[in-house]
């Protein structure tokens, strides 16, 4: 359901995606599909323990196995200092962290941490060789929970790590497992709570969860004899990959070319390097191309989950529901190296609501678990789970409708958040009202053990750099060259914006995603930025083409360029000719004449706009809880979201439905389980248990369109915010069904039965 009519011809329609046929016929080439002459196969030797010192690595037996060509360890990578950085979007990342996670040096920090890599002529031989690499460890006690990691008596994961106060930039004197402490403050929080009639304070806990992309990580490298390094891989960020490799390998960016293959999902987890530097070093050692792929077990143990969290939320409200104060403390597990998304959690935790007095503390805490990576709206879902669970309890306490309470406190244009920014035009109220007016909310939920829940979430979205080249073909089509790996339909959504600008059919723009030598710098496919920034670059390339096409028509007609204009219907018009009629030529006619009138033309753009606009989402869910088994079934789900402008509504709906599905999994089943030594107990899809088609109903979407005034087509970005509200919405629905509040996720059958069974409190 789309709520508005738009003045566009292409934007808002539903053409078939340009890469679709290859993807439904099996012809699309994903990273693992590559095959090069003489290619070797690489595998990674991993730590079986969560914390320990590496005493010795002996690869001699592996190297003696027929077919094995090379082994590498951290000794083959340059040692990087803590103060050496590589760019990552608008921030930077420590090369010591990147390098240390790619391959353990001296010490292993989590089970699955890479300690060596081997390549051989056949994948089975490479696998055999793993067992022949001998590694001797001295085990150290693992630190598995953030609360114990924060104690002064906790074993140190990194002896050189000192807590950094982000407000002052100062570091603590004593080493600690707490990497960073963030504070955001607004108004007077003590005075705010003093004037509250009701104050609720609750603590929440979530476990690490994985992005769960179906395609395992992969990388193929060929280090040419002239020093050129070729990388083929599934990445969300070809240029970030290139820059990080340059830093890790101390090799010039101009000597590295990253060619993106089709990517089988990422959700934030395929931005960081893992296999690429290892494959590169093995290729350098052997002079052959080396392909490496992870197993699913390795994906779980050694690639990016998002943080487990402990969050305390305190809300104060007047009797009429007006929020007057909020305090939050967010403790996020970073895994084995610094870098949890706690800063984003701090930024998002109260921002969907207008609260004048706030104090938020965030802690980035090391534990002996895999280093976390971004996961769809990183940091926000757990924060929303905490805040909107308390909001639900507040509504109950004050006998208010949960949407009425949120509407009373909804952030609006001009509302300031704790990070100091004031909102521009936003659709927060619109989403709440769309749910309040939905057939789902107006229906009555009947039957025993059933409950309905609502939650309201916020995400800020990113801008960053994108480039585009657009060249006109003689048949009236346009070849569009992009640098953003297409993870879920962005070829379509970007091409459609160029088509709209030129006034031609979507099918006449032919997009290609190319390597890092073939297009201008383009940042990560992530942060809900690709349709926003890529579309803007394509639009600007289209404006460039319009100008050049008008100039060409002027030249053909022998008039001044200023007398000619490119109309939105793809007709170029000029002053009256000798016959008295207005001169005109269509885009298609002119395209056919370009070669004979001065040559073909290319439009280009590099854009870097900071006007990405925030998005809000309100979710409504009905559940039924089976009192015998504890299983929670999702009966009905409606998600309203301010999408700015829906470029291709089907793929916008798909983003929302996918985010809901991941959020429902997070709420009900998904979690990393570790034994007492820090070994993951459920590193398979069967045991990790993501939602299947049987676990979900159809997911109804309401596309609320409040265009972003800072974008030519009003785009806000849509991919991330749909995962923010489901955790709280489901927990609130389960409370309505059972009378029990679940402050810990997942709300698995076992957790439900523990609350429901008599005498088991």
């Amino acid at each position, binding site marked *: 359901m789309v709520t508005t009519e738009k003045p566009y011809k292409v934007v808002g329609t539903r053409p*078939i*995606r340009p*890469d*679709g*046929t290859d*993807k*439904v*016929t*099996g*012809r699309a*080439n*994903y990273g*693992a*599909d590559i*095959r090069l002459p003489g290619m070797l196969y690489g595998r990674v030797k991993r730590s079986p323990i969560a914390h320990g010192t590496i005493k010795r690595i002996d690869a001699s037996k592996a190297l*003696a*196995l*027929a077919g094995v060509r090379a082994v590498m360890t951290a000794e083959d990578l340059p040692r990087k200092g803590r103060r050496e950085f590589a760019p990552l979007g608008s921030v930077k990342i420590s090369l010591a962290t990147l390098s240390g996670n790619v391959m353990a040096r001296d010490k292993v920090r989590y089970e699955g941490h890479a300690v060596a890599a081997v390549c051989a002529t*056949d*994948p*089975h031989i490479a696998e*055999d060789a793993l067992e022949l690499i001998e590694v001797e460890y001295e085990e150290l006690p693992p630190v598995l929970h953030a609360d114990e990691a924060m104690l002064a008596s906790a074993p140190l994961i990194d002896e050189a790590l000192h807590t950094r106060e982000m407000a002052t930039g100062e570091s603590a004197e004593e080493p600690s497992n707490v990497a960073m402490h963030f504070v955001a403050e607004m108004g007077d929080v003590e005075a705010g709570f003093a004037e509250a009639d009701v104050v609720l304070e609750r603590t929440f806990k979530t476990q690490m969860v994985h*992005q769960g*992309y*179906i*395609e*395992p990580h992969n990388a193929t490298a060929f280090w040419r004899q002239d020093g050129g390094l070729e990388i083929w891989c599934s990445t969300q960020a070809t240029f970030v990959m290139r820059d990080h490799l340059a830093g890790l390998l101390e090799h010039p960016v101009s000597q590295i070319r990253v060619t993106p293959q*089709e990517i*089988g*999902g*990422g*959700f934030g987890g395929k931005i960081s390097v893992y296999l690429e530097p290892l494959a590169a070093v093995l290729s350098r050692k052997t002079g052959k191309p080396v392909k490496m*792929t992870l197993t*699913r077990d390795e994906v779980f143990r050694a690639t990016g989950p998002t943080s487990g969290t402990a969050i305390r939320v305190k809300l104060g409200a007047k009797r009429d529901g007006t929020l007057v104060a909020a305090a939050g403390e967010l403790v996020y597990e970073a895994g084995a190296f610094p870098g949890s998304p706690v800063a984003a959690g701090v930024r998002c935790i109260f921002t969907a609501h207008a609260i004048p007095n706030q104090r938020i503390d965030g802690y980035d805490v090391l534990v002996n678990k895999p280093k976390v990576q971004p996961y769809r709206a990183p940091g926000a879902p757990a924060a929303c789970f905490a805040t909107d669970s308390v909001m639900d309890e507040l509504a109950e306490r004050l006998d208010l409708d949960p949407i009425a309470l949120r509407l009373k406190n909804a952030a609006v244009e001009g509302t300031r958040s704790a990070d100091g920014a004031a909102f521009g035009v936003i659709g927060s109220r619109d989403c709440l009202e769309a749910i309040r007016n939905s057939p789902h909310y107006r229906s009555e939920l009947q039957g025993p053990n059933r409950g309905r829940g609502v939650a309201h979430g916020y995400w800020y979205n990113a801008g960053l750099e994108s480039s585009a080249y657009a060249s006109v073909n003689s048949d009236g089509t346009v070849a569009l060259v992009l640098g953003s790996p297409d*993870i*879920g*339909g962005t070829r379509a959504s970007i091409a459609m914006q160029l088509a709209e600008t030129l006034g031609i059919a979507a099918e006449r723009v032919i997009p290609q995603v190319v390597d890092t030598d073939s297009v201008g710098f383009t940042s990560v496919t992530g942060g809900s930025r690709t349709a926003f920034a890529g579309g803007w670059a394509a639009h600007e390339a289209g404006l460039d083409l319009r100008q050049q096409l008008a100039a060409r028509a002027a030249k053909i007609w022998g008039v001044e360029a200023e007398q000619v204009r490119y109309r939105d219907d793809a007709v170029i018009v000029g002053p009256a000719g000798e016959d008295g009629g207005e001169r005109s030529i269509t885009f298609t006619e002119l395209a056919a004449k370009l070669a004979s009138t001065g040559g073909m033309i290319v439009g280009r753009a590099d854009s870097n706009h900071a006007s990405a606009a925030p998005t809000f989402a309100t979710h409504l869910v009905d559940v039924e809880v089976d009192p015998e088994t504890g299983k929670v079934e999702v009966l009905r789900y409606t998600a309203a979201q301010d999408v700015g402008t829906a470029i*291709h509504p*089907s*793929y916008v*709906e*798909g*983003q929302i*439905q*996918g*985010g*809901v*599905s*991941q959020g429902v999994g997070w709420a009900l089943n998904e979690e990393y389980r570790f034994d007492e030594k820090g070994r993951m107990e459920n590193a*398979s*899809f*069967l045991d990790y248990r*993501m*939602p*299947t*088609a*049987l676990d*979900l109903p*159809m*997911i109804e979407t309401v596309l609320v369109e409040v265009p972003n005034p800072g974008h030519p087509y009003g785009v806000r970005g849509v991919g991330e915010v749909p995962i923010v509200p489901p955790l709280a919405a489901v927990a609130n629905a389960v409370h309505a069904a059972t009378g029990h509040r679940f402050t810990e996720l997942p709300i698995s059958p076992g957790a439900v039965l523990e609350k429901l069974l008599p005498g088991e409190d």
Partner: protein
Amino acid sequence: MRAAAGSRRIVVGATINDEPQEFLADERDSLLEALRERIGLTGVKEGCNNGNCGACTVILDGRLVCACLVMAAEVEGSAITTIEGIASSEGLHPLQQAFLDDAALQCGVCTPGFIVAAKALLDVNPHPAEDDVRLWLAGNLCRCTGYDKIVQAVLDAAGDGKESA
């Protein structure tokens, strides 16, 4: 030098996508490894290599199987249909067209498995209800779509789906 344990090659004969052929495989190859690495049918995807995700779904002698759970040596004399054998020279299979029309894919890596599985469903049950589709496809994982548009596409291909919104 130690001899590599897994270096013995075997010749396997099978009919793959209606074409009889012989291929050389390692005796330790799964059907998935043989299809991808030895024959080049890389439309068959690996997501888990233990039968959990369904990305490598193929039809083996009329039965739906995960190619990662079958040894290459076992398929001697068998008929196998992979995603590469679903479309004909005349064009896409109605399921493939429905997946495109309904935007039933995002990253697309699970799509081959879903289409092969859905074809096997429609072969035995040409007019499934939504619940039938969800039950049949419960062995295929998708992390992008929330399954909504996939289920709709299968219903549409069967001609029973309501018009997608």
